[in-house]
């Protein structure tokens, strides 16, 4: 879908990115100043690489050797900016159709009605951008980009300027839009919850370079990338399915490869596929199956690796019937339990620590 090999020097900062993104949502994740926005703006043609090549589907958009540099208006890429950038002199409808009107009828693959429905902006059409809330503006901006029938959608931290409430309100729209219109999306973010919720493929950016790229679950579970994915965020990311709800106790059962996991009640229909993050610091280890404990989740597994981390913390990787669970324990605890690779162990996880924001609807 998207193939990048670009180099650009910005002052004393170098952006050097080689990247191939497929369908679905590819998240470009990294701290501020890691070069994420530079990459996306070069793809859009708003800034120019010093040298390199950019290819979307079968079309070369930039090639410094072949002297190809397609201007932004001919690239047919949708761009959703951090600030919505709606045209203040046009009403919402005119904003939405602004790009659409430049696309020949035969090449329009989305209809105004569909986009308006999915984004829930039907009631806003006659209004002007100045009167919209931040979340509404961003939905209109997404709709405007979609209606230009782009080959790929570029989203530059579209939720970063919104307060948590608006953000929670907009995330489902983006997730739904990504599925409904089956459009490849390059999503720039420095917020883990967005990545968890949306990313199929994850590209970790560090200081202008790609540090790692691959399926999101795999990258987020890797211990060697914790300095980039965040130590506090360290843990396993697993796919699970909502098995049942127990309304008497406010519990939702989630089935995954390692068994069934109980979590606090979530509002997702049974059968729904979810992505679940289990923080390593929340996982307690035992070498024998405990009895008479309050912990509801006891997962049997085998120790795969024991890696000393910074500050007398030991990262332990457990294989629970094919599902990887990480645990962070003190070196003292490791010494007492004499935990070594290959041992049988149990991962203990309180249902209340599986928080709602760690479970992302992926259906």
């Amino acid at each position, binding site marked *: 879908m998207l193939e990048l090999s670009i180099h650009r020097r910005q002052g004393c900062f170098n952006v050097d990115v080689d990247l191939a993104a497929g369908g679905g949502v590819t998240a470009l994740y990294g701290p501020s100043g890691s070069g994420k926005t530079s990459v996306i703006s070069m793809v859009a043609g708003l800034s120019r690489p010093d040298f390199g090549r950019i290819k979307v589907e079968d079309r070369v958009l930039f090639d410094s050797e072949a002297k190809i540099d397609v*201007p932004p*208006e001919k690239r*047919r890429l949708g761009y959703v900016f951090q600030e919505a*950038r709606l045209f203040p002199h046009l009403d919402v409808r005119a904003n939405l159709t602004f*790009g659409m009107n430049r696309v020949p009828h035969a090449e329009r693959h989305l209809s105004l009605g569909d986009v308006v429905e999915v984004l829930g902006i039907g009631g806003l059409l006659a209004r*002007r951008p*100045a009167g919209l809330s931040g979340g509404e503006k961003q939905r209109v901006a997404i709709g405007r980009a979609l209606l*230009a029938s782009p080959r790929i959608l570029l989203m530059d931290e579209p939720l970063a300027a919104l307060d948590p409430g608006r953000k929670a309100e907009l995330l489902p729209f983006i997730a739904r839009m990504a599925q409904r219109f089956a459009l490849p999306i390059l999503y720039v973010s420095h917020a883990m919850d967005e990545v968890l919720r949306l990313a199929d493929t994850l590209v970790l950016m560090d200081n202008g370079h790609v540090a790692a790229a691959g399926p999101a679950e795999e990258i987020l579970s890797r211990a060697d990338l914790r300095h980039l994915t965040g130590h506090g965020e360290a843990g396993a990311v697993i796919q699970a399915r909502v098995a049942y709800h127990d309304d008497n106790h406010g519990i939702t059962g989630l089935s995954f490869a390692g068994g069934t996991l109980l979590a606090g009640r979530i509002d997702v229909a049974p059968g729904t596929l979810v992505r679940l993050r289990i923080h390593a610091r929340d996982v307690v280890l035992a070498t024998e199956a405990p009895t008479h404990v309050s912990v509801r989740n006891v997962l049997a597994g085998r120790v795969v690796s024991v890696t000393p981390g910074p500050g007398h913390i030991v990262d332990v990787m457990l294989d629970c019937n094919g599902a990887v669970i990480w645990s962070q324990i003190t070196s003292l605890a490791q010494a007492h339990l004499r935990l070594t690779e290959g041992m049988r162990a149990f991962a203990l996880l309180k249902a209340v620590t599986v928080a709602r924001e760690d479970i992302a609807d992926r259906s």
Partner: protein
Amino acid sequence: MFALTPLEIEALHLSLLVSGWAVAGSLPFGIACAWILARCEFYGKTLFDGLIHLPLVLPPVVVGYFLLVLLGRRGPVGAWLYDWFGITLAFTWKGAAIASAVISFPLMVRAIRLSLEGVDRGLEQAARTLGCGPLRTFFTVTLPLVAPGVLTGVILGFARSLSEFGATITFVSNIPGETRTLPIALYALTQVPGGDEAAMRLCAISVVVAFAALLTAEILARRVQARLRS
């Protein structure tokens, strides 16, 4: 008492005609120059800026004389215009329009330039990613956004043209029915004995016209602003 005399009607008509054409004719150039000053960096930009602002600081008589030398029937440009197109500018109302346009040009450019500098370039980038080339982006996004500035520029230019005297009288003289605009007619009246009452009447007309122009500008500007805000 309030009925206008033929002389007054003639002067008023000429003033509006000359000012209208001065503004209409110079507007595209004004927008272009404002855009260049607001957006481009090039060697000699300060000189270019100074050249545009020169009529603002020069005595209008100097500008008028310069126009006469350049565009007069025997001037380098004037002779060429006459030989090839049969156009005469000196001592015609067209010449008066050109004199007014040159004098009011800096005011117009300043207003538009200020407005252009305030435009969010991000909106233009957004338009580009939505399939608009630079020219279409300018006309569909940039220009509507600077409409208040353009309006201010137009009104300032129009008002300055109405009051134009020095360059006009030097370049196109005082010809009844051709170049005798309100200020020139007024000046002529003050030079003859017993012209006081007629001069006062012309003063009153000038005030009314100028005030009407300012009021119209204010109302239009408010409307445009309201459109952008709500």
